[in-house]
C-alpha cells in the first residue's frame, strides 16, 4: 500500500497540474462529506432582513434574495452535485462496461443490433434527451441521475466494445478458453479487468460532463426543487437579479461549478497522459 502511495506521489510530482487537480478533487470530496460541519450558517434558513447583501466579512459570498448565506449553500450543494454525478457515472460505467464487452466479445448479430441502438441514441442531441427523460420519469433527483447515466451509456458501450474487440483474439484469451473457462468467465475475469485502466480515464473526464449536465437540467427547473441547495438552481434563482447588478448570486455558484468541472477534466487528462502518453494532445 505504501509503495503504491509513494509511486502516486512520484507521478504527481512530475505532473504539477494533475497534482493540483487531484488536490481540488480531494477538497471537493472533503467538502461534500463534512458539509454540515463546515458550512458557517444553515443553508436553508432564510432571513429576509438580510436579503441580497454583497459579500462581507459575515457572509463571504453574500446572501441571496431570501437572505440565505450563499457560501453555506455552495458547501451544502457540493454533496448533492457530487452525489448525482458520481452515481450517474457509476451506473453508466457498470452497465456500459458489461454490455460493451459482451458485445465486443460475442460479435455477430447481437453486436450489430446493439451498435445500431447506440447509433440511434447518439443521433439525439443528448441534453434534449435528458430533458425529455426527466420530464417523462418525474421531476425528482433520482431521475436526473437516471437521465444522466442514460446519456453517458452509449459512450461507455462504444469504448468497452472497441477495447474488447481488439483483445478478443489475443493469446491469453485463447489460453483461458483452452483451460476450459466459459465465455462469460473469460469476459468478466480476464477481458473486463484488462480494459479497466483505460476506462478509469473516461470516468474522470465524464464526471465533469455529468456535473455540467445535472446543473444544466436543474437550471431549467428540472429535477432539483426550490429550497434545496444545488449549483444549477442557485444560478437559475440568481439569474433574475443579474440585470439589477447583484452579481454574486450567479458568480459564486458559477465559479464553483466551473472549478469542479475543471478539476475533474484536468485530472482525467493527467491520468490519460500517465496511462497512455500517445494520446497526449
Amino acid at each position: 500500500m505504501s509503495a503504491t502511495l509513494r509511486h502516486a506521489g512520484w507521478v504527481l510530482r512530475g505532473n504539477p497540474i494533475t497534482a493540483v487537480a487531484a488536490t481540488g478533487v480531494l477538497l471537493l470530496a472533503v467538502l461534500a462529506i463534512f458539509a454540515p460541519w463546515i458550512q458557517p450558517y444553515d443553508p436553508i434558513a432564510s432571513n429576509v432582513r438580510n436579503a441580497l447583501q454583497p459579500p462581507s466579512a459575515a457572509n463571504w459570498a453574500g446572501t441571496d434574495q431570501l437572505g440565505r448565506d450563499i457560501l453555506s449553500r455552495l458547501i451544502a450543494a457540493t454533496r448533492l452535485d457530487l452525489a448525482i454525478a458520481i452515481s450517474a457515472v457509476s451506473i453508466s460505467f457498470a452497465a456500459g462496461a458489461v454490455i460493451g464487452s459482451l458485445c465486443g466479445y460475442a460479435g455477430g448479430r447481437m453486436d450489430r443490433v446493439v451498435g445500431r441502438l447506440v447509433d440511434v441514441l447518439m443521433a439525439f442531441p443528448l441534453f434534449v434527451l435528458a430533458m425529455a427523460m426527466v420530464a417523462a420519469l418525474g421531476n425528482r433527483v433520482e431521475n436526473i441521475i437516471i437521465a444522466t447515466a442514460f446519456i453517458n451509456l452509449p459512450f461507455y458501450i462504444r469504448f468497452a466494445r472497441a477495447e474488447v474487440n481488439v483483445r478478443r483474439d489475443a493469446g491469453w484469451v485463447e489460453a483461458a478458453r483452452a483451460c476450459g473457462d466459459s465465455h462469460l468467465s473469460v469476459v468478466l475475469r480476464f477481458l473486463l479487468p484488462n480494459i479497466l485502466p483505460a476506462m478509469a480515464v473516461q470516468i474522470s473526464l465524464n464526471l465533469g460532463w455529468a456535473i455540467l449536465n445535472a446543473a444544466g437540467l436543474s437550471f431549467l427547473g428540472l429535477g432539483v426543487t426550490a429550497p434545496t441547495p444545488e449549483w444549477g438552481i442557485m444560478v437559475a434563482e440568481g439569474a433574475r437579479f443579474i440585470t439589477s447588478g447583484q452579481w454574486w448570486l450567479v458568480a459564486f455558484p458559477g465559479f464553483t461549478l466551473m472549478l469542479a468541472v475543471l478539476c475533474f477534466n484536468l485530472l482525467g487528462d493527467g491520468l490519460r497522459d500517465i496511462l497512455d502518453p500517445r494520446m497526449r494532445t
Partner: protein
Amino acid sequence: MRALRAVGRRVGRRLVASAPALLGVVVFTFLLMRVLPGDPAVFFASGPNAGQEEIDELRRVLGLDRPIPVQLAHYLYDVGTGNLGRSLTTGQPVLRDLTERLPASLELTVTALILALGLALPLGILAALRPGSLLDHGVRLVCSLGVCVPTFVSGLLLIYVFYVVLGIAPDPTGRLDIFAASPPDITGFLLVDFLLVGDMEGWRAAAAQLVLPAATMALFTLAPLARMTRASMLAVLGSDFVRTAKSIGLGRGRVVLVYALRNALLPVITITGIVFSTMLGANVLVEKVFSWPGVGSYALDALLGSDYAPVQGFVLLMASAFVIVNLVIDTLYGIADPRVSIE
C-alpha cells in the same frame, strides 16, 4: 464529374442508412412522451372542478383513449404526412410553431459556429506552429476553461459585464428591442431580412442583440475545435510531405495553409459536426438565458406544461437536423480529401 458522382453516392447511401435511425427516434420519443406523468386531458380541462365527462370527451378528442399501438400508428402516419399535431398551449399546429421559431435558433447557432470556427482555426494553427510557446499555452488554457464554464453561467456573466457594468450591450431579452420596428418577414432571419430591405440601422440593432448569445455559445464550442485543429495540424506538420514541400523551397504560407491545413482538416470537420449537434442541445440553455424566441425555449415551455406534441416535434426536428448535419459533413469530407470517396 466522377468525384461528384462518388459524393452523390455517399450522400445517398448515408440518407438510406439514417432512415432506420430516424424511425427509431420517432418511436422512442412517442413512447417516452406517453409515459409522461400528468394527464393532458385533466390539465387542459376547464378547471379543477371539470366533470369526468368533460375529461373523457377531451381524451377522446386527443385520441388518448385508444390503445398505445393504435396511437403510435396514427402518430407515424401523421408524421409521414407532415402533421405534427397541435400545441395545446399555443393552439397552433406544431409544424407552424416550429417553422416560425426555427430561424431564430438557426441564426443564433450558425452565427455562433462561424464565430467559433473563425477563432478556433487560426488559434489552433498558430499553436501548432509553435508548440510549447506562450501562445500555445494560452490557447490550451482558454480551451481548458472554455469546456468547464456552463453556457448558462457564461451567458449571465457576459450580460453582467457588457449590459450592467459597461452598458454597451442592449437589453438582453429577445431578438430585437421591443420598441424597434421588425422587418417584413421574408426569410425569418432578421439579419438577412434587414439587409434585403436595406435597413442598416435595424440590422445593427439585430446584430447587437445577437452578439452576446452567439458569443456565449461560441465560447463553449471554441475548445474542442481549437484543440482538434492544433492536434491534427501538429501531426501533419511533422509528416514527410511537409518536409519535402519545405525542402523544395515552397513559401511558408503555402506549405502551412495549402499542404498542411487541407490534410489536417478531416478530423476538424468531424469534430465540427459533433459540436454542431451539441449546440442544438445547448441552445435550450442559451435561449432561456437570453429569452430568445427559438425552438429550444418553445420545447422547454411545452415540456414543463406537459404538452406532448411540441416536444415530440422538437426532438424529431433535432434528430433530422442531426442527420442533415451528418450529410453535410460527409459531403465536406469528399471535398476536403478526395481519397475518402474511394473507400
